[in-house]
């Protein structure tokens, strides 16, 4: 072997070692934060209790500004509810909310009816005075909880306010909405540093979310399955899914990935076969819209992981009646008479 060959191999091996070393450091240390914004998730995760079973994020600003949203807005009838909401609360959903983090803690034996632990933390621009006034006008009360202002809704028939919707001003420009129990848990989580950031299982799922996605949800599948009240026959047929992650990017089209991790390789194989079968069934349809949508689905994964990627480009969305690239209203001829009259 000549010296020139040795030098060449040393340089080649050096490049591979540098690349693998960089990847390894980033993998274990969550390093290169400037390049990997998705690594640790939004800072508002510090308000999500550690025992949350599902955590979700939506960049409302990006979704509202997306080309798809603009086209839907042009097609859909005037959203009266949204306008009323703005008049009463002063919050313009289109412009005042930047992003939201939502969470659901394990409901416990009583289920959600007995223990409603849904929580939404929203970052944006809010008129606190208007919101407090609105709450008081509707019988709500304002109190302090560990230094945070808490606006509670009126008590229920049983006199219990724990289950009514409450709102808390966590920081300037940051509000939490949920049951009183959930909001107090959220404040406790942040003060005691016992938030979801300390839950390695969930944080690993969040770390795997690609940075380009503007909406995602991760969590334990059992927490959802137990609330779905599926018939026993159906529930027994569902492969043993341990965790799930859904991530999507909404812009001109919609792209994203749904990833599930099963308890063992066999369950993953079963799930892959079920999805493959459904995709094959979908491809047999004569409907070009359905075919285009099914063709955008890509099944992948190995071992215990099953992943389903989808990419619905704007051209496919344009095939849906009513959505046109120029944003003009274009309702199909077959719509009921009442709907045509609304045009």
């Amino acid at each position, binding site marked *: 072997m000549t010296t020139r060959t040795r030098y*060449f191999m040393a340089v*080649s091996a050096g*490049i591979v070692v540098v690349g693998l070393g960089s990847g390894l450091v*980033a993998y274990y240390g969550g390093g290169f934060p400037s390049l990997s914004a*998705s690594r640790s998730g939004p800072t508002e995760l510090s308000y999500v209790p550690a025992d949350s079973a599902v955590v979700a994020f939506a960049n409302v600003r990006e979704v509202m500004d997306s080309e798809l949203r603009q086209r839907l807005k042009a097609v859909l009838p005037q959203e009266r509810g949204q306008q009323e909401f703005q008049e009463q609360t002063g919050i313009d959903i289109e412009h005042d909310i930047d992003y939201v983090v939502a969470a659901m803690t394990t409901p416990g034996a009583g289920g959600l009816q007995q223990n409603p632990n849904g929580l939404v933390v929203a970052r944006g621009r809010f008129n606190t005075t208007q919101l407090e006034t609105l709450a008081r006008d509707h019988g709500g009360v304002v109190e302090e909880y560990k230094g945070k202002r808490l606006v509670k809704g009126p008590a229920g028939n049983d006199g219990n306010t724990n289950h009514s919707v409450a709102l808390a001003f966590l920081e300037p420009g940051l509000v939490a909405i949920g049951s009183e129990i959930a909001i107090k848990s959220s404040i406790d989580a942040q003060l005691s540093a016992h938030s979801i950031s300390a839950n390695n299982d969930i944080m690993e799922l969040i*770390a795997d979310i*690609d940075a380009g996605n503007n909406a995602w949800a991760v969590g334990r599948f059992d927490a959802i399955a137990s609330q779905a009240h599926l018939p026993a026959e159906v529930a027994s047929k569902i492969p043993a899914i341990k965790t799930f992650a859904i991530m999507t*990017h909404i812009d001109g089209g919609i792209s994203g990935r749904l990833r599930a991790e099963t308890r063992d390789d066999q369950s993953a194989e079963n799930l892959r076969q079920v999805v493959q079968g459904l995709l094959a069934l979908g491809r047999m349809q004569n409907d070009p819209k359905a075919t285009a949508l099914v063709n955008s689905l*890509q099944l992948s994964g190995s*071992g215990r992981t099953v992943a389903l990627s989808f990419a619905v480009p704007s051209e496919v969305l344009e095939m849906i009646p009513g959505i046109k690239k120029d944003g003009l209203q274009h309702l199909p001829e077959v719509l009921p008479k009442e709907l045509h009259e609304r045009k």
Partner: protein
Amino acid sequence: MADPKSPGYVSSAMRVFDLSVSEMLWSRRTIFMALVVGAPVLISMFLRLLDALGAPVFRVNGMQMAGPAIFGLMIWVFYLRFTIPVLGVFYGTSLIADEVEDKTITYLFTRPIPKGAVLLGKYLAYMACTVFVVLPSVVIVYLCIVPMRGSLGGSFIDLVKDLFLLAIGLAVYGAVFAVIGARFKRPLLVGLIFIFGWEQMALAFPGYLKKFTVAYYLQALVPHAMPNDTVVSLIQGIFHENPSLPEALFWLSAILLSFLWFAAVSVERKEYVLEQ
């Protein structure tokens, strides 16, 4: 029985490897390899530059693609479907054919070493040449592309899998084409028909035919989603089915060992007639 003073099979192969690796690396064929492997590197650097300048390079059909997705696409399109089989066919078929063509095989076969060790040594030289060129290229593409709206850490496991499967691909394709090079008169033509004819066709049909291709088992190791960029790949995607990881690894190992053994036996037994 071998001469007691002659080197053993492995040390003979290593001597041939030492002799062949520089010759193979600095041959004219390497210019072709540099072009094949350099193209994705240049493209990734160009994309990175455009992205840094604010050009919408990651927008496809109105959607913004993340770096990891583009990296996966490049692994499929540039490396798995083209570079690996093409390098395998160009180098693998030439292991013995080049020596026959140059009429230098006589010098190797008159040495007191097993003829099969000549092939094994040249095969190891092929592996060294291709692995030391292809893998750094993949790493550079990873470092350029993945950080664009993605994380190096998040795609690290995928990179390790990619490097592993590309090395396996080079090894298996090299062994298959070593047999073709040792047994057929026009090995390059046969090899090109195998990768661009047989493999593409078998993968596009439903049924068991795809099990007689290397790509079927290799694709089972890929951690990225298969792209539907051409009509053929769209059809392949419809009939796409993955063997399990152990099954894929078993069959790839079986193909590698059996074809390498078969190539060595072919070289041992075949009488090469040099054309005057």
